[in-house]
């Protein structure tokens, strides 16, 4: 097994160990410094400690990491670089990447930046700016997804369909799974944006949603960058 992979895994393991051990030894019932009044969907549940939704998002990000990590290792194995594959599989033909992918990447970066700005504006209590940045975040994400579909068409038109070979099949698969995850994030974005628009709602109540959306957005940007580099270089 590749020594670097082993080293990487070990490092991740150690990091997880520290986080987990620290997490496990906390007493979840103890009071913390800041103040957030959270409205539960079914009514007011009063104040909470570290919001459970934040823990749940991080656990969910762990699940998604496992998912994409497995897709990527399948990609390597199919390409012939991973253990377990026979050397000399000669049917891997890198696909020519549609140029729109660069534009899409820029859209996703802008989307993440807008969400981060929204999160920052919440802290500064700038209501108008929050609304603006939030909408921009969603709009850029939608542009990204639209661009991905255009990229699919461009790829198919240049002769690489889903069944044209393993490289193109993986291209559609990886970008498709990533896009679906972004779409799921947009569902939450729609709910948050709707709450901001329709009611005279205190910023403090959407703060958690915006923060968690932003974390999710940054994570999907990271996944996209890793995949993009992978797809470009192979």
């Amino acid at each position: 097994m590749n020594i670097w992979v082993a080293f990487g895994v070990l490092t991740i393991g150690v990091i997880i160990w520290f986080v987990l051990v620290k997490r496990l030894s906390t007493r979840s019932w103890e009071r913390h410094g800041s103040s957030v009044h959270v409205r539960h969907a079914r009514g007011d549940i009063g104040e909470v400690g570290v919001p459970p939704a934040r823990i749940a998002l991080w656990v969910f990000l762990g699940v998604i990491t496992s998912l994409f990590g497995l897709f990527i290792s399948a990609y390597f194995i199919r390409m012939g670089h991973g253990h377990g594959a026979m050397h000399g599989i000669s049917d891997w033909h890198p696909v020519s990447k549609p140029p729109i992918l660069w534009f899409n990447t820029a859209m996703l970066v802008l989307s993440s930046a807008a969400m981060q700005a929204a999160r920052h504006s919440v802290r500064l209590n700038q209501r108008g700016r929050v609304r603006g940045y939030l909408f921009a975040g969603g709009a850029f994400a939608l542009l990204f997804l639209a661009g991905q579909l255009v990229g699919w068409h461009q790829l198919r038109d240049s002769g690489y369909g889903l069944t044209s070979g393993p490289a193109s099949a993986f291209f559609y698969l990886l970008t498709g799974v990533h896009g679906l995850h972004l779409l799921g994030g947009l569902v939450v974005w729609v709910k948050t944006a709707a709450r901001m628009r329709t009611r005279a709602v205190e910023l403090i109540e959407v703060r958690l949603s915006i923060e968690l959306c932003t974390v999710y957005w940054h994570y999907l940007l990271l996944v996209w960058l890793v995949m993009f580099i992978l797809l470009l270089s192979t």
Partner: protein
Amino acid sequence: MAYAAIADRDHAHALHDPQSFLTKYIWSQDHKVIAIQYTITAIAIGLVALTLSILMRLQLGFPHSFSLIAPQNYYQFITLHGMIMVIYLLTALFLGGFGNYLIPLMCGARDMVFPYLNMVSYWVYLLAVLILVGGFFVPGGATGAGWTLYPPQAILSGSPGAKWGIVCMLASLATFIVAFTMGGLNYVTTVLQARCRGMTMMRMPLSVWGIFMATVLGLLAFPALFVSAIMMTLDCLLGTSFFMPAVSSMGQPLGYNGGSPLLFQHLFWFFGHPEVYIVALPAFGIVSDLLSTHARRHIFGYRMMVWAILAIGCLSFVVWAHHMYVSGMNPYFGFFFATTTLIIAVPTAIKVYNWVLTLWRGDIHLTVPMLFAIGFIFTFINGGLTGLFLGNVPVDVPLSATYFVVAHFHLVMGVSPILVVFGALYHWYPKMTGKMLDDTLGRIHFWITFIGTYMIYLPMYYLGILGLPRRYYAWDEAIQFIPPSVHTMNKWITVSALFVAAVQLVFLFNLVWSLFKGKPAGGNPWRATTLEWQTPDTPPVHGNWGERLPVVYRWAYDYSVPGAKEDFIPQNVPPDKLAPIGHAH
């Protein structure tokens, strides 16, 4: 305003009590109702799988007598039996059923932290079950690819259900994984965030630890199954070649090229091995609590038990290719994975020693739950030791795909965890319903099941050593190396299986009958220390704890504390309320 932890939100008015029949019993967000929904659904689909296994055994024991079971039916039955039992019964029951019921109660919480998500997870699970069963009714019938669903055969025309059956199966699995992820987020977050005051992680009962670690395993391992399901669906429906090599069927080359069936095996078993620990770890945790309570003795080496659960969980991710020794993979991998497989036997063995040491010099009450717990120890040792045989490559090569493997995994997965399920149901039924299950019927159920499963699986080892291959519809009498005594033995096994299956009806009858006619149980009939037995109402009402959440002062195992007045001290008894000496861990 200051942060207040979930544990400090004492006001019961925060939870809006459901009012109508529909919101109380059907679209319920109460973890106890959801747990019972999961349990009933899991047992129902489990009975379907049990029936399939009876049909299989009838074919194997009396091959010429049942013409209604054609060879393709037989393969459909083994596939569905395996998939249902492992995933839709055991995983759903231990995590969705016991996890949902016990985690909030044992941690002193009012409910799971995401009750709506919890409810949705059950209905998505039910959808997954319905899609799975629907596989029998699509053109071509259910898939007959074996529960491992190996390509290329799974989607080639020789296998039953090679078009729609396999798609049904994969869709059902993907749906289940979505349901499981929703539930899993709940279990993990509740354990981390919603423990009551004083309930540190190292004061939690081992049942919660087992379910918690199993959930973490599931959240990280099920994506591997999801990945392989997506890729195989694309291969089947859209003609991609992720797993499909260049292959011809009936003389015609299919369009596939260059895929790797071995890739599927790696992905599947990367999920598949943690999956068996997802089934085993809750069983380990629960049996620790059963033994402790009914032997009136603290669990021996609680800290080691927790570390063993964590170690087994982590190690379970690096042993998967011991299912692939004969797959043609690089033989050096066999060396690596055999080593890790033997290493994982160490924490498992430590747990077994600790269970036995818990019983040593204990005040053992041979109640029905205790019988099942002790039965677990016997059958798990038996099945587990044969795992050491199979974990070694040279021994596995001749035994692979024989009945030796079948006997091994049935004992460690089918018999031992099921004995724990029964023991746990007998143990917690009084809490869930306020009534005791009938004791006599319970003992009949135990002894016939326990002895019967030995009569099924011990001889099966010998069949495997003889070389009797598995996944065969029938063995032609002309096959030289299979003596006639094998066929007699198969008859014996089938008849034993029929008895064991029949006695489960006694259990089902007991479950329903005791609901109406069972002896009233009171709040804590087993005199247990854990929090779920300290609720003000039995069965616990919505919100579990009444006005105030409990506060915990000690670990979950203060049984037979020297100097104490009673032979048990509940976790939530304050130190100043103890007579003579109080122990706080």
